[in-house]
């Protein structure tokens, strides 16, 4: 196989989530919880202490009946690169180096056995992508059988978050190495949510690889901190310069505005 893509260079794994396609069914959340051994309590209705690495937000245009509109927005960890690669809001503040920016993949990791639960990273993350284990995880009798051995169960008192299913990357790389390859095919490494989404709303791959769909859809501009060149694509809170690797696509202007798409705000201020 001949590749013109991104060979031997660092990868920047990322996502494009098509908000036009997302139906808010929540299968991504379930797939994520199942894949990553996310615990659950008897009462999960307090969303302020409910661990959902991937959370689907419900956005509305705020207009009264019958002009009300709704859009769903799945929010995994944004795997921010920051102003320079690795200066993620959370990685830069973690005092114990328990969260790390992987220069090979661009993935922000969390080392559960290292984290001592100061929660500074949670304070730093504007996306609320980080979750604290307020409780000891408890599985109803028998259900611990369904735990995935590739992801360790977390103990109470530490922070956890979406890892872009990093264990899947490791498994895929292991397999590739066994087969004497150094590069992964696009479909060899996909996150659980991407795979499960019945709408096919999530596209995952190497943003640096022009052969990958994520690159083609988002068209990140490396000169501008990865800003998308596709006019329908945007990132959450672009102006904070967190430089996230999760891109969103929506054809609705109010959705773009709700996510702080910069050009809209520029226009807005220009009008005033």
């Amino acid at each position: 196989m001949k590749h013109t893509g991104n060979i031997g260079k660092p990868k920047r794994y990322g996502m494009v989530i098509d908000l036009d396609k997302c139906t808010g069914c929540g299968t991504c959340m379930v797939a994520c919880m199942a894949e990553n051994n996310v615990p659950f309590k008897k009462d999960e209705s307090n969303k302020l202490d409910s661990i959902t690495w991937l959370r689907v937000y419900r956005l509305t245009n705020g207009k009264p009946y019958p002009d009300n509109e709704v859009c769903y927005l799945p929010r995994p960890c944004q795997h921010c690169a920051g102003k320079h690669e690795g200066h993620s809001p959370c990685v830069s503040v973690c005092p114990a180096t328990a969260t790390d920016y992987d220069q090979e993949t661009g993935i922000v990791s969390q080392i559960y056995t290292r984290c001592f639960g100061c929660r500074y990273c949670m304070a730093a993350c504007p996306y609320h992508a980080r979750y604290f284990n307020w409780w000891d995880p408890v599985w109803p009798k028998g259900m611990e059988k369904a735990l995935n051995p590739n992801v360790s169960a977390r103990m109470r008192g530490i922070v956890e978050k979406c890892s872009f299913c990093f264990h899947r990357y490791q498994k895929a790389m292991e397999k590739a190495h066994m087969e004497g390859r150094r590069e992964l095919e696009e479909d060899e490494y996909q996150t659980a949510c991407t795979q499960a989404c019945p709408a096919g709303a999530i596209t995952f791959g190497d943003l640096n690889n022009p052969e990958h769909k994520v690159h083609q859809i988002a068209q990140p501009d490396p000169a501008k901190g990865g800003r998308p060149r596709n006019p329908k694509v945007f990132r959450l809170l672009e102006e904070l310069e967190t430089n996230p690797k999760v891109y969103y696509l929506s054809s609705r202007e109010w959705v773009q505005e709700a996510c702080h798409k910069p050009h809209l705000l520029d226009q807005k201020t220009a009008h005033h």
Partner: protein
Amino acid sequence: MKIDRRSFLALSVGGTVGTALTPLPWKIQDDLAIWTQMWPWTPDPLDGENTFTHTVSTLCRGGCGVTVRKVGDRVVKIEGREDYPTNQGGVCNLCASGMQMLYGPTRIPHPIKRVGDRGAGQWARISWEEALSMVAEQLGEIRQAGQPETVACLSSRKYGSVAELLKRFLTAYGSPNFMVTPSMMDAYDMTLKRMHGVDGRMGFDLENADYVLSFGSGLIEGWGNTAYMIHTNSVWKERKATVKQIEPRLSNTAAKSDQWIPVTPGTEAILALGIAYVIIKESLYDYDFVNNFSTGFEEFRSAVLSGYSPGNVAKQTGVDQSTIVTLAREFARARRPMALCGRGQGTVPGGLGESVAVHALNALVGNINRPGGVWAMPRPAVDGWAAPALDASAQAGLAKPRLDGAGSAAFPFAEQLFNRVPEALATGSPYPLKALFVYEANPLFSTPGAAKVREAFDQIPFIVSFASHMDETAMAADLILPNHAHLERWEDVPDTSGFHQPMIGLVQPVVEPIRDTMHTGDALLRLAAALGGTMAASMPWENYKACLQEGLASRWSQLEADGFWIDNRYRPDTWSLAFPTPSGKFDFGVAGSDLKALFAPAQPEGDDGSYNLKLIPYDSVRIPNGPVGSPPFLVKIVSDTVLKGNDLFVEVNPETAKAAGFVEGDHAVLKTPLGSATVRVHLSDGLMPGLVAIPRGLGHTAFDGYLAEKGINANDLIGSVEDAASGLDAAWGILASLVKA
């Protein structure tokens, strides 16, 4: 004294300093940290060999083709099967949570019989021999007494070998009372029969439709095959198809559609007829189809033109005249327009008039049996079995009328009318029930007017449940013969969700049964054998798998090899061959019905003037409301504007709430003619004023602390309304009031 104190001090200080200088404190500190990293009470899943098995998950109504990842003998993940024709790699949220259904503590571990009062939850473990002989004894006695028709069976599935086996069991036994939990497909089947003359099922070539007019169907919220419909929605986005959603609430389907058209609940059929009016009036219909392949058009035309002018319709439905006209024109001019009905997930059939009115739109534009249209499809059949042997006793029983009146003079086209059962049992007419089998159904929870069903069940002296999980109906049973869980068994799942190609999925055991359970098919075979005679002769198979294999006949080899069977070259009959009605044409006249009566909207019950609001149920894709109770993952993803603690939120338009003095989160008493409940108010700009919307599927009393007592059951507040034309449940909701708690 002083010396002592001084030496004591010196010793303590010296000791402390001395210990601090040894590696001991550092070692302890390190060990403690390591201990926190592997607390014994935090589970550490064992690794093992990874295997991937294909099967079909039967948790959702449509059935998801899945690939199950196992580590050793543990199921750890359920993913969508890439090459499965419907879900195509995606999966629905319920099937993705299947591990929790397999391993959850609400599984019924072994056969049990009731020892306390009904519903008290006092059970005694019994052996399978004991359990089966108990049933055989009871059935033998009833048959001996010459009342085989008093044994009934309720199943959530109409097709497939287990449903067929249950039906066959009853037939050989001598009971006509095989019943299926109601769904929109009942109305569709009846429509097909009366307009097409076909005993079949509806198929929808959805992906190829370019203009979809949905009369309240929760297209991406569990209508049809959940995962397939969500996939289809994405196909529509890619192909820029238009979706117009007609319903009083801004559902997810409405939110993702190109236009949300709020409509007064229960007037959807009127709106469809208003659209038909414009199409007919402006001669936008398909001349070829209407003139050459249909009959009864004149009757239909005059019925429509006499009462459904846009002005008239606008008044009743709350939809602007101009919108009606626009919808009609867009629909008629689209290349492949398709009109769909079945509210929400289609768990309530709706009246026949509604289904007929909507389907008439498809007929007007000739989008029948064409690409991108509605297709009449053959019913899936288990056709490899010989006809059951019937003795005199069976023949006598089968000659009796059905308990629910389906097929009687009043409802000649009906096949199932479970909604009429409570009434029949309450009056004991035509006869009481002596025994009931419940298979994968939870009628005590999921039937509208659930209280009445509970009362009716109290009249049945012997209820046998085949449930795998302790649901509400199992709680009320006398004997439970637990079925294998969905990942432990063989089964065929013919698609009945409206997929446009004949298809059967094969459920294959992924793990050995982890409890002392028995496949219901095997239990039936053993019961038949115990009953002997023609019963045993009608069900001669050694085990369920042999019976399955024989039933699927020629399709078995493909099923076994691929895990599914599909006829992807299937095309529906062309118009000239498609309509086996007396005229050989599509019948707009609905087999000679009184169209005016047919189209009259269902009247809500209990209008005593004390109710100022209308309560409508809504189906959420995150809340299963059928036979399966939400596993913990699904309860977890329910929004906090739906459920908070155990409190259920009902949606109310801010304007309506303001008039009643409610603000967000207020507690309120929601009252309907059926009962009342305390709820909390959630203000929603996505709901027509004057309505209250309540989610279906919460308020379980059975299951465990992860689900039980959360919210209230909509079916306790909303009942069924019998459609005079068909006997089907035509309820769209109920009148209600909402006052401060």
